[in-house]
């Protein structure tokens, strides 16, 4: 175990692909956490954005370290575009919900259930 940690700490300062990936993983997890826990719909959407950003970091990191092909960057471009489109639609829906229910707390909008 000790050897694992010593290797790990020795590895830490030498930034390379995995460092970015781990940042991405943590960002992804934070995004998930936000989606799961925030009552406010807009905060939930923020969580979604975090998840997408995490994926993008992956794409770009892999693009950089994976033999310099730009597919990853291209993909990231599309992800950003889609994030914008999705955010627009989602916000419109949230506004609509607000008009209808006078709340944007996702957990309160649960008429459809078993």
């Amino acid at each position, binding site marked *: 175990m000790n050897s694992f940690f010593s290797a790990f700490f020795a590895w830490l300062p030498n930034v390379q692909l995995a460092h970015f990936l781990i940042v991405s993983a943590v960002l992804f997890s934070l995004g*998930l956490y936000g*989606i*799961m*826990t925030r009552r406010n719909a807009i905060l*939930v959407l923020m969580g979604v954005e975090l998840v997408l950003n995490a994926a993008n970091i992956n794409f770009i990191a892999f693009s950089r370290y994976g033999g310099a092909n730009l597919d990853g960057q291209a993909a990231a471009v599309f992800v950003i575009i889609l994030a914008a489109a999705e955010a627009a639609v989602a916000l419109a829906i949230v506004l609509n919900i607000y008009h209808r229910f006078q709340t944007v707390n*996702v*957990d309160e909008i*649960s*008429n*459809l*259930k*078993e």
Partner: protein
Amino acid sequence: MSQELLLNLSIVILVLPLVGFTLMIFFGKRLPRQGDWLETSIIATALILAVTVLYQKMMLYPHETLALNFTWVDFHDVPGIGPMKIVLGFGIDNLAAIMLVVVTLISTLVHFFSIGYMQGDIRYSRYFAYLGIFSFSMLMIVLADNLFMLYVGWELVGLSSYLLIGHWYEKQSASNAAMKAFIVNRVGDIGFFIGIMILFANFHTFNLQEIFEAIHSGRIPFNSESWLTAAGILIFCGAIGKSAQFPLHVWLPDAMEGPTPVSALIHAATMVAAGVYLVARTFPMMTADALMLIAYIGAITAFISATIAIAQNDIKKVLAYSTISQLGYMVMGLGVGAYTAGFFHLVTHAMFKAGLFLGSGSVIHGMHHALHHQHDHHTDPQDIRNMGGLKSKMPVTYWTFLIYTLAISGVPLTSGFMSKDSILAGTLAFGSLTGQYLIPIIGFFVAGLTAFYMFRLVILTFYGEHKDAHRAEHLHESPKIMTVPLMILAALSFFIFYSSNPLDAANGWISKALERPESVVPASVAAASTEVFEEEHHHAHNTAMMLSLLVAGIGIAIAFAMYHWKKISADKIAETFSGPHKFLLNKWGFDDLYMGVVVNGTLAMTNMWKWFDNTIIDGAVNGAGSITKVTSFVSGKFDSIVIDGLVNLSAYLSGFSGLVLRKFQTGKVQTYIVFVVFSVMAFYFAFRLL
């Protein structure tokens, strides 16, 4: 007459009553006099033909068995067996020919008697129709040369017995008795049927002659002598049921709920004798062990029912127990090997017992009329304690009745003396051959008892003063149509019709005709051979005659002493031995026993199964449901769903798990997401670990 003609004649005899039945059942009510003449003339014709057949058979073919066979079902080439046919047919040997006459004769007489006795009955034509179907089925038993048809006839007489016992079905007791008769008989039939199955499974034929030949050639069922014994005993089970042998004798006394002529015909002379006939038919295949058992069953039956008869007060019940007792005698006779004697007793007993029943019928008829005149509907016309002094009122009935009683008691010059004596001699022979002396002891004791209770009956019914003087005025002799049959039967109770020697039947035509057939079973399990047995039988003859005369005399004397001269008080004895008396009055408790154990047991069992079916199997769910119903979250919904159709436990479980699974659908999207991410991780770890 050619053999074919004889056979055809006998088939005509068989079919005639069936034709009568069919006509009567459909058109009986519309015929003049409701068709009694039709049925009666048909059966009378049958009688004439039967006598012809018997005569011709005796004259022309005294030792042959005439057979007429036809293929009933053809199984063609059966795998593993080869060609197989079920051949049925009729056979006439001396046994059958004699039975043919006995059955038709008594049937004819009973028909005539019934015309008088049943006058004005609401189902008069139905009654005659049933008599027709009975005659048909009984004749079928007689003529069958194979077990299958025998069984068919066997069941059909059961049916007709059921119908006739239940003739007055408005009476609960009558319909109960009918049912009891049928069901108790069926218990015996199970054995009979299993016996048939054993034989068929091995020999692939129902034909008795073929079965005997097969056994004779050394092929025995399942290669085991015990199976052969078992087959014999199981077939005898049929006889136990039909001939009311211990322990299935309980139905016969109850069967007295039927009209008295029916009792005479079916429950005294013919049907109940079918069991004896069956044993006689299958006699060659009985092993020594089987015969021993048969003998003991017969003896026990004879003894038990004779003792019960002593305590009975119903005229027909006394006769019923006497019938059982006499049947036990016959069975015992066959069992000990006295084939001829046993069957001979069947014939003689048929005459005098039919007579006794018809006589009692005449008495009841008279009593009934008298009571009817008095508008008395409470007094039991069958209870001998209400009778007495009928001798003068009904002379013909009395005299004929006395003759029958003498015959059954075994007084010399009567037919009963000869046959009974012969059986007793057989038992003595058996005793000396096998060392089983209990059987002759019972035999003689029962002979004494028989004489005693029969004379008790005669005395209480006909002697002394009538119990009710007013009623006595209305008592009349029965009409001619009823008394003539009585006289005929009385005549037939004399020795002369059976043998020229009143003391020994051995040389009579009937004994000549009925030679004991040789056993076909392997020698190691066979009973004493005919030769040996006849030797012993002959030796025992004189001893038996003496002893039987003695015990009969004693029995008669005690009867007169107790009931006529009142030297001994019957009541006092009853009081002194109140325990045994009650025991006898209670018929040894058999009815209670069966009611309590068998019938209630079965009913309890059926109810248990019903409960089991409704609760365990079917309601695995509905039951499980009731437990779960309590739990809160299932709530009232569950009930309706269960009733709506969760058919079994699995359905319940699936419904239940559906209910649980529903809980995942909370309506909160973030909860869903937790589930999703959780599942993703779960899959990931599950597959990593695998």
